[in-house]
């Protein structure tokens, strides 16, 4: 394999047209416009990196530490320019090889076909996740109920009577008045203590809660399971 050819051809595959050809049409674009796009991209990607990168790190050390880590990453990259280049290059090499393998892309494949292959890949991934939840509904339900209980309890709801407890079990935390997401974080610690014997379940739960976006979906899913069950 020609090392350089791999990267360049890989990058060219990502672009609808050969990069060189496109460059030649770009003479009117200013450096400032390019830099502005770069900064915009950087901000967007960093936000995403904060979302999923931070999810994992938050479990161990909290968001504040992750932000520190982000700063360290930038600083470390700048301090190790040579290594950084090698890493990015190594990543791109793997990407180059893997991209073609994953999507079965060969020269001459149309953009429509490429998109179709990708969609199929995404669908399979989503199905895989669904299967995972279906296999362990009890555990998921147990975890969700526990955290719901913790959250509602901390909201000051009267949970002493049977009816109140029933009501609590039907309440979605994000529907509570004055719902404060930080309550989730505090509740997580409480739930973690209970789930010490099942760290994997706790990890899974933390992942979902910290992603936030999965929150509503998770409860809706759990409600469906209740109906089915």
């Amino acid at each position, binding site marked *: 394999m020609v090392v350089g050819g791999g990267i360049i051809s890989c990058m060219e595959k990502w672009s609808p047209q050969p990069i060189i050809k496109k460059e030649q049409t*770009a003479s009117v674009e200013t450096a400032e416009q390019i830099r502005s*796009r770069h900064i915009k991209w950087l901000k967007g990607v960093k936000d995403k990196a904060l979302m999923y990168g931070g999810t994992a790190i938050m479990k161990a050390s909290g968001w504040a530490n992750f932000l520190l880590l982000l700063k360290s*990453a*930038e600083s470390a990259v700048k301090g190790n320019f040579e290594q950084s280049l090698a890493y*990015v290059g190594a990543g791109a090499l793997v990407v180059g090889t893997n*991209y073609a393998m994953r999507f079965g892309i060969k020269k001459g494949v149309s953009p429509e076909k490429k998109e179709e292959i990708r969609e199929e890949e995404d669908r399979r991934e989503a199905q895989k996740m669904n299967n995972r939840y279906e296999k362990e509904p009890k555990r998921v339900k147990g975890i969700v109920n526990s955290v719901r209980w913790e959250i509602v309890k901390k909201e000051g709801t009267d949970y002493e009577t049977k009816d109140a407890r029933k009501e609590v079990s039907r309440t979605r935390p994000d529907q509570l008045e004055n719902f404060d997401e930080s309550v989730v974080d505090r509740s997580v610690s409480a739930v973690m203590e209970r789930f010490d014997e099942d760290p994997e379940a706790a990890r899974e739960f933390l992942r979902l809660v910290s992603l936030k976006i999965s929150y509503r979906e998770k409860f809706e899913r759990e409600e469906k399971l209740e109906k089915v069950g």
Partner: protein
Amino acid sequence: MVNAREGRTFYIKRLNIKNIMKDFFKKIFEKRGLSEDGINQMYLDFSAVVILTLIGVSKEKLNTTETEQASKMMEDKKIDDLFKMIQSKYSSEEWATMISEHITPICESYIEEVALPVNA
């Protein structure tokens, strides 16, 4: 332990990769009015995102001690050690999948959103 020949090969590969990536960034941006420093800065930013992503998505594979080690490595700028530690947590297949899922989209979006001229 690698022998001298393997060591040389690795070194040459790293050099090639570095030069190729550098050339690649130059190739995209040099005739578009950006200074060399500007291109380097963009490259560094891009590298930071890639490395940060690698760390973030791999964090779950690290135990508490390794997590602490990782943070320390970041502080000490021992990116090389950190990279090796992360990679050692993956099988070849897992590594390829992880790169495909998390690094490929970064490269793709950079090409589409930054590298390609909007008026082309």
